[in-house]
């Protein structure tokens, strides 16, 4: 009765399974299903990979392992020692979730699912199973989740909170493209990434988001006004000095921060201090995209993505297209 090597009753979601016996006999029957690959390892090295079929193990179909065993006399008769690892080639779900922050340092909480598949069984076994000494599916999922979350947090920290909230499909597309090369390095292929939930954990940021989205005000303008409010509230706590201090402190806060004062220059023309409307000539505050007098668009609309850029922009700040 020949030895039969087979992955018996695989559980749902199992990615790897190690054949419990290390002593393999020549002439053993290796049975590999269509959705599996069987990897032969010895001394931490991958020797041979078998795909679907019923294989009788001989010196012919284990060429690399036979080469390694050729120093041992009578190797083609006596049993040899090798680890057989079965790898599932199905698509697997990887739930992810964590906390991170956006480019504006807004704290966010996210969760969702990624789907991945083993693309290169030999690379996967050397990099993850052999390299990390992971032999159970639970350990493997823990390893991948940590890896995935770290990469996703790094990608989210480069994104604006407004992009994340307004165009979640864009973010998942960018995240998938950013993470896939790292997965390929481990012999895996990232099939898809989908967010199922995203939330701003800080109540203050939630209010800010709501106000900015509802009113369409410039975020930088909103933050400046918030600073003025805070400063005014703090000054209100000290009776007596409040009025004088307020007169000195509040007005500079109402305008954008200037660079460190250079040596005195001749007076700048009004056009450089604000944005002059080409339609009515009104001088708007810096950063304005529409004239506050007549409503004329002051910026440059990107022909590629439709984003409104500052009037002096040469390239779109959203997609990089030439204006």
């Amino acid at each position, binding site marked *: 009765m020949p030895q039969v090597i087979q992955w018996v009753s695989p559980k749902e979601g199992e990615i790897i399974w190690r054949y419990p016996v290390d002593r393999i006999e020549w002439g053993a029957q290796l049975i590999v299903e*269509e959705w599996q690959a069987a990897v032969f390892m010895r001394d931490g090295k991958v020797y041979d990979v078998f795909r679907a079929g019923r294989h009788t193990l001989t010196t012919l179909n284990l060429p690399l392992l036979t080469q390694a065993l050729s120093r041992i006399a009578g190797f083609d008769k006596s049993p040899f020692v090798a680890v057989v690892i079965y790898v599932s080639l199905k698509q697997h779900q990887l739930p992810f979730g964590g906390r991170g922050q956006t480019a504006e340092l807004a704290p966010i909480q996210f969760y969702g699912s990624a789907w991945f598949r083993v693309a290169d069984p030999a690379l996967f076994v050397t990099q993850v199973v052999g390299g990390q000494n992971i032999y159970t599916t639970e350990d493997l999922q823990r390893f991948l989740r940590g890896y995935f979350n770290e990469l996703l947090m790094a990608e989210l920290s480069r994104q604006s909170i407004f992009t994340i909230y307004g165009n979640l499909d*864009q973010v998942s597309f960018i995240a998938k*493209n950013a993470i896939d*090369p790292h997965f*390929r390095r481990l012999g895996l292929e990232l*099939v898809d990434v989908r967010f199922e939930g995203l939330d701003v954990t800080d109540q203050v940021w939630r209010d800010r988001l709501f106000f900015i989205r509802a009113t369409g005000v410039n975020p930088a303008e909103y933050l400046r006004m918030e600073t003025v409010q805070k400063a005014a509230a703090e000054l209100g706590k000290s009776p007596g000095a409040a009025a004088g201090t307020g007169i000195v402190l509040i007005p500079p806060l109402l305008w954008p921060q200037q660079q460190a004062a250079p040596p005195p220059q001749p007076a700048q023309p009004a056009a450089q201090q604000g944005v002059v409307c080409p339609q009515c000539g009104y001088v708007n505050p810096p950063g304005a995209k529409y004239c506050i007098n007549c409503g004329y668009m002051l910026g440059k609309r990107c022909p590629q*993505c439709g984003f409104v850029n500052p009037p002096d922009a040469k390239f779109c700040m959203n997609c990089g*297209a030439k204006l």
Partner: protein
Amino acid sequence: MSFEKNLLERIASYIPGYVGYKEKEVRRETDALVRRHVASILSAAAAQLTLSPTEARAVAANPEARFLWDSVKAALDKVAQKIDKAQHGYSGFFDLAKVDESVLEEVYRHDLALVETAKRVAEAASSLKALRPLSQEWLDALRQILAQLQSLDSAVDERSRILDAIKTPPQPQWESGGRKRGLLDRLLGRG
């Protein structure tokens, strides 16, 4: 016969070890060899379809380009998996002791077309690297790859149909109402 030999040689130049389906014992291996080879060409093509972070942000901002890119990736994955993980079916074909030469020729021609179409997809995917993402040429190249993949998908289905049809032997002449010509008929030029 020489034409069939020529076909076999051409396929073997792409797939080392391809010996055809004449011998019943090696049919399954030959079939698996073709499928694995085509799947590996397509997997290599899929690995070519990558975007740098800057390119990915630009493509993500354009809904049409994003949809097209995702469609190509999905179609490539679908066809590669379909041919790689195909069931070892066609039992009728694999179990037949002898298969008609003309039918075999059709299968060989189909195998060759499958490999060559997959190679064209791989070439188109690698030439995409040289194009600027979101440019008209880049979008057209993506549409072309998508069309090639759809024809490859149909070719995979057609191959299954051909191999499945082989297991049903043709009706004998006497069953289909035909009459076998005897020696006398042939001498007198009748029927």
